[in-house]
């Protein structure tokens, strides 16, 4: 069964149609990536799934339950974690407090403490800087913190928006290593990524979005070979 199912979703910002009838599915355990140019609507789609923008029409179904238009804090409680574009870590609070806030929807304090230790093991640099204010971290560290913070809610589905944005190539490699590791752990991931090459390599399936519509879909490997994708997004 599909974990996430989106049918004919439309989102408008005033007169602008950001999404014009998007339909897609994500099965449990999959990594699905969305590729497309700037302004194609990728982040809008992520924000709609997370409850941050209200769709004009269409439905979002998560684990068989319609969640269209519900508020973001309810989405988190249902099991949708969001690592947003631009990271949005709480800059004036410590790294540890950011992770604690990531678990805001949970009340199992022992398990929260052990999850923090777990992500400190995955991201040793966060452990080193745990008492530092998040705003003082480098871009790569903030990205790791944003991902770890989203994982602290123990999501069934992780929305990962532009995890490589502004990062040095070496850090990007590290971030993608973590994404692979998350797949091993069974976390379902919907990934938006500028670096289409990397995204298609790691993804099971992919959708191409252009001006608010899905224009192409297939497995990661298929799209990597696709001529249109190669010329538009892979610079080949």
């Amino acid at each position, binding site marked *: 069964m599909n974990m996430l199912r989106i049918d004919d979703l439309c989102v408008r910002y005033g007169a602008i149609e950001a999404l014009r009838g998007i339909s897609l599915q994500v099965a449990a355990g999959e990594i699905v990536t969305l590729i497309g140019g700037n302004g194609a609507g990728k982040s809008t789609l992520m924000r709609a799934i*997370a*409850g*941050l923008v209200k769709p004009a029409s269409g439905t979002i179904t998560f684990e068989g339950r319609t969640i269209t238009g519900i*508020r*973001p*804090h309810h989405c*988190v*409680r249902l099991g949708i974690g*969001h690592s*947003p574009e631009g990271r*949005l*870590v*709480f*800059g*004036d*609070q410590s790294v540890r*407090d950011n992770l*604690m*806030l*990531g678990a*805001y*929807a949970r009340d199992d304090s022992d398990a929260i403490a052990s999850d923090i230790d777990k992500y400190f093991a995955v991201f040793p640099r966060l452990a080193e800087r745990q008492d530092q204010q998040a*705003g003082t971290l480098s871009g790569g560290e903030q990205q790791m913190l944003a991902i770890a*913070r*989203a994982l*602290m*809610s123990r999501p069934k589905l992780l929305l990962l928006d532009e995890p490589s944005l502004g990062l040095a190539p070496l850090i990007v490699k590290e971030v993608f290593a973590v994404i692979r590791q998350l797949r091993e752990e069974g976390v379902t991931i919907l990934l938006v990524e500028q670096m289409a090459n990397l995204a298609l390599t790691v993804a099971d399936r992919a959708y191409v979005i252009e001006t608010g519509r899905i224009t192409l879909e297939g497995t990661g490997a298929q799209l990597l070979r696709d001529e249109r994708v190669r010329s538009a997004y892979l610079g080949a």
Partner: protein
Amino acid sequence: MTAILQALASGLALGAIYGLIALGFNITYATTKTFNFGQGAFLVPGSLVGVSLLLLAAGKPHWGNLAPSEMTLLSYALATLASVAVVGAIGILLYYCAIKPFVGAGGLNWVLSTIGFGIILQNAALAVWGPASIAVPSPLGNEVWRIAGAGIRPQEVLIAGVAISVMVGLDIVLRKTRFGKALRAVAFNPQAAAIVGINVEKIVIIAFVISSSLAGLAGMLIAPITTASVFIGLGVALKAFSAAIVGGLTSPRGCMLGGFLLGIIEALVGLWRAEMREITIFLLIIIVLVLRPGGLMGARSVEKI
């Protein structure tokens, strides 16, 4: 020397009142970038509800004067709690009527809507209590205490004690507790707070309840000094607003500091020439704002991007 000590005690008490109200401005400003311009009117039910409860408990009508024998520390404390609860509930009403329709929409509609809400509240109080002021004895008695030769009013000690305890308590809550961290998360970025599972609107409503409660508490604390009446709030709230701006509207500690500074300067200058009080204070405020536009402890106006 004794006169200065006396003035310092008055200034500390007055400053504590300003600080309490200023802290209320900070809490709602942090979460919504708005605050209650009509906050002065919230001191009115703050004092009158509590005083009326004490009057009713003494078997009198809800207006009139309270005799010192009708006031004990316990009855005053209970009446204060009741007042704080009532004014806190009015804060919820304020949020739904005057803030929610306008927040996030840009513009200054919230300024007028909060002023309007305050005027409605004040006039409603006028209808219930009339324009006469009610003399309120201090629960610690009206006899002046002699400390190092200076005469200090017991109510001033009570004000400073209660207000400082509440401020320290709130400071700890904001820094250490899950609620405080969530409130700071909303203040930092409401969308980021929402995606970790924080119910942003709930936090905002609590912020307005706290802010209103603080004004209610200030009204009840100051009543034995100023008397309780429909007209007590405006001047005090204007000073508290100044204190918040001078200390830094974005900094809780700055708001408290601003309150104490204003209160103490006001009392000390008043010793010298009463008519110079307001002139000095508002001149100082302008100088501070020229030198530090964000206030003494506020965020720098140029933000790191």
